[in-house]
Every structure is written in C-alpha cells, then in structure tokens.
C-alpha cells in the first residue's frame, strides 16, 4: 500500500458503465517523511476524505471490487484509510 496526499478532484460525466457513481479524486504519492513524488493517481474514495488529507492507497483492482460489492471494477487505486499519524521509529 502507498501513502498519498489528496490534492484535488476531477469531474467526469462520461465513464464506462462499471465505474458509474464513483467519486474520483487526485492523489499524489508521498514518502513517510512527507516528500512528494511525481506519481499521481486518480483514485476511488471509499472512505470519504477531504483535500489535503494524507491517506493510504491500495493498488489492486480486487480491493475496490470488494469495497463496492461489484465485480471487476476497472479501477486499481482506492483510498482505504485516512492516515492520522505516521510513527517513524528512527
């Protein structure tokens, strides 16, 4: 799973049938120290998070199919948790 920051949303009216009623957000991958990467994902937000929040992404299509209760949803990345704190032991 990946740590990411929600930086925005996208609006899409035309989508393939299987992803109708999804809420797509833009996530930018970060490392545990908060360093931003060049990797952006369009993700399904299954938890309900806001802009600027740090989240956990699961990058596997079966995950989102499990969450939405539909089969074979063509989205890989989904928000599965909102991160309140990252405790680094070093």
């Amino acid at each position, binding site marked *: 799973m990946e740590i990411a920051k929600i*930086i*925005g*949303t*996208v*609006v*899409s*009216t*035309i*989508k*393939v*049938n*299987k*992803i109708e009623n999804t809420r*797509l957000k*833009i996530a*930018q991958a970060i490392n545990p120290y908060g360093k931003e990467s*060049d990797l*952006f*994902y*369009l*993700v399904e937000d299954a938890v309900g998070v806001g*802009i*600027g929040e740090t989240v956990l992404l699961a990058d596997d*299509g079966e995950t989102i199919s499990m969450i939405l209760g539909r089969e*074979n*949803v*063509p*989205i*890989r*990345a989904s928000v599965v948790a909102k991160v309140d704190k990252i405790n680094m032991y070093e």
Partner: protein
Amino acid sequence: MFYAKVIGKTYSNFKHPSLEGLDIKIIEDVNIVTGKLTGKKTLAMDPLGVSIGEYVAYEVSTEATWAFDLDMVPADTSITAIIDSRDIGGEDPV
C-alpha cells in the same frame, strides 16, 4: 487510474475477434498538476469513443480488461473515463 490526453488514433482492420469494433487511440500522459505532457505515449483501447484532444483517465494491467462489458478482452491499457475538468486544491487550472 492515470491522467492522459488523446493525441492520435490508429486504423486496424485485422485484429483479434474480441477487439472487433473497438477503437485504438494514442494517449500521452499528462502531469495532473502542471497540465504538461510528460512524453510517455502508449496505445489504449477505447470503449467510450473519445476524440483527439480530449483528456481521459485510463487504467492498466488486469483491471484494463474489465473496462468492457464483454468477458474476455485482451487489453492491457483501456480508457475508462473522459475528464471534463480537474480541480487542484480549490483552483481549476484546465
């Protein structure tokens, strides 16, 4: 899913029966914050019928085969949505 711009199309009369009737488009990745093209170009199956110049979301790998209502489609990159606008941190740079 990832963000890209449709920059071209292809014609193919001779393809696997499961891809019959589906368009193949050329897409290029776009940095979603700056809006700049990244140079990474690829072919993508198009179940929606998008036009050149439109911004889309696409999916890769196994999940790309699920973008279709059909059971088995050998596609490793598929367009899944047309992006009308994007909003980064409250502003809309599109």
